[in-house]
């Protein structure tokens, strides 16, 4: 029930792509049946174009810090990639598992707090462990937390997930706010410095950028791999029809909880990066506003492809940074809320969906494009 409704609700990418492909595929051989060689050439051509696109983007990302100012490298580049990584965990769960969890930022927050508690900060609560040990322990604890959240929320289905994860996330926020002995209350932890490795301070713009880029690329390709691996395929099956998957002998609950754990690792890495970026952590960093920011990023980009998380993050960070030049600083939430509302109301697939629609409008076979849009709407 949940998956079917989810797909209808989101006008799911899988459904849309499936439809478009099945409508286009029979048409192509009919038209080009006499020349099988040309089809092969077309496929090669397509592969090359996809490859080229990836190479260009990758090269652009690598060269970016050389051309951009430190501000753009650190504030825009680094922050977008770290936020994108957290949003990627939500995209993976929402887009491929059919579970929209608002607690992903809380998982990142747990990781951040653990880095602060086990590592070094100005606060006497910190235990002062070496940074690599603190990071490993933090990611482990955050993953356990994510698994626990998953175990709790998969007991109910569909729309309840968002309620339960929201409740857990807000409860975690209030805990960090009220608790002084472990979470240092409202003041939080300050001067949680990024480590210095081989004489390089990881919080300098360029090293931080490459660090986040490395993590983001690893996360992106890991998810790309995972959704084609047997686990990912089974997860998408669970999203589309849990009952049938159960009848086929798959353990539906285990797949869902495992998805929470995997997403938890990504969110935890993002959380560690975010605490190094901010140099501090406080209850504000895990508040409901930030939780919703992650949802905004994922929905803004579009949940039907992992790249959407990063597209959304870049747009979000740019808006956050430059909207204050256009309007009052205090009114930023109005802008971001309005943009989010517009996206949800008019383009459920986010910016990727808009891009896909735009490409259909471009002149590459009018009849086919028309058929597609008929099939979709």
């Amino acid at each position, binding site marked *: 029930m949940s998956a079917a409704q989810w797909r209808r*609700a989101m006008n799911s990418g899988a459904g849309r792509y499936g439809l478009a492909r099945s409508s286009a595929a029979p048409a192509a051989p009919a038209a080009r049946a006499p020349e099988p060689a040309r089809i092969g050439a077309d496929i090669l051509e397509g592969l090359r174009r996809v490859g080229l696109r990836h190479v260009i983007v990758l090269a652009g990302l690598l060269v970016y810090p050389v051309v951009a100012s430190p501000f753009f490298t650190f504030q825009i580049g680094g922050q977008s990639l770290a936020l994108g990584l957290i949003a990627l965990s939500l995209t993976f769960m929402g887009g491929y598992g059919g579970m929209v969890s608002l607690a992903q930022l809380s998982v990142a927050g747990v990781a951040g707090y653990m880095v602060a508690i086990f590592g070094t900060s100005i606060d006497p609560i910190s235990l002062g462990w070496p940074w690599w040990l603190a990071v490993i322990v933090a990611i482990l604890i955050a993953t356990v937390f994510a698994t626990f959240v998953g175990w709790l929320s998969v007991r109910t289905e569909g729309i309840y997930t968002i*309620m339960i994860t929201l*409740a857990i996330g807000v409860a975690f926020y209030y805990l960090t706010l*009220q608790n002084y002995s472990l979470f240092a209350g409202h003041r939080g932890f300050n001067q949680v410095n990024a480590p210095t490795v081989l004489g390089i301070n990881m919080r300098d713009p360029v090293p931080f950028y490459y660090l986040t880029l490395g993590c983001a690329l690893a996360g992106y390709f890991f998810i790309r791999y995972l959704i084609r691996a047997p686990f990912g395929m089974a997860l998408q099956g669970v999203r589309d029809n849990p009952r049938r998957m159960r009848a086929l002998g798959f353990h539906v609950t285990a797949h869902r909880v495992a998805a929470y754990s995997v997403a938890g690792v990504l969110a935890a890495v993002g959380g560690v990066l975010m605490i190094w970026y901010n140099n501090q952590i406080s209850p504000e960093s895990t508040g409901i506003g930030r939780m919703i920011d992650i949802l905004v990023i994922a929905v803004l980009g579009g949940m039907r492809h992992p790249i959407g998380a990063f597209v959304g993050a870049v747009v979000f960070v740019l808006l956050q940074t430059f909207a204050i030049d256009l309007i009052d600083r205090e009114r930023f939430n109005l802008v971001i809320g309005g943009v989010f509302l517009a996206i949800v109301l008019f383009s459920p697939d986010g910016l990727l969906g808009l891009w896909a629609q735009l490409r259909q409008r471009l002149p590459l076979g009018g009849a086919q494009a028309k058929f597609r849009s008929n099939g979709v709407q």
Partner: protein
Amino acid sequence: MRGKRFQLWASVALIGGPIAVFIVWALFDNARQFVSTFLNGVTLAALYFLVASGFTLVFGLMRNVNLAHGSLYLLGAYVGWEVGDATDSWLLAVAAGFLAAALLGLLLQVCIFRFMQGQDLRQTMVTIGISIVLADLMLWMWGGQIYQFDPPRAIYGSIPMPIIHGYPTYRIVLFLGAVVIGILLWWLLNRTRVGMMIRAGVDDRAMLAASGVNVQLVFAITFAIGAGLAGFAGVVGGTALSISPGEDVRYLLASLVVVIVGGMGSITGAAVGALLIGIAEQFGLAYAPTYGIVFTFVIMTLVLAFRPRGILGRPA
């Protein structure tokens, strides 16, 4: 059958035992603190029930998780405050709070949610967007300061009580008011024609439409009542406590937890959940201040672990 009964008694002993021990200890240790904490808990529960009953009513009928419910609470409170300030009448303020929230709820249902029937997730996301925008608009209009209502003179002051010497009259009236509203809601749902339609809509929306009922009208009425209850609770709660930005999140969390614990879509469930959460929260604040929220969370976890649909929930 016997196994089930044994399980029931075992769980009662397991949960009730420590609570009984705690009550005995707390009564001997400081009876006054215990009783006043308990009364505060019940007052808070009454407030939570008012907010959560609207939430659960809307959810039960329309499967719409209205995450803007907290914003409706806050909006009702602010509008009520403006009216109360202008007219000097607390009762008018309550009425204005109810009407303002109900009107906004009606607008939302008629202008937005009507067009995305059955798209649960999208509706929920839209309500999130609306709550962001509303929160910011309200911050813009009413600023960050704290507002408070004065209750009418008749229910001002305090009533003498045994052990604790006195308790604010207003809070007792609030509790009684919540009980009355609960009974009214029960009566509306179980004894009137509209209530019959709403219950039929909960069970089978398509069948109700097929039998000639204007389902959209029923939806609109339900949404207005649910939103209005939030606005009503805003003024009432603003009198007992206070209103400031951020309260919307607090009451949204409260409604979510109450409804998850009590069972979604059930008014009685909302009452049970509100009592549990309200009392647990106050005892948490009084006896373990920095871990107060953990009690709420443990209750939610336990309920979800053993009854995933809530204490009084039933399969959708």
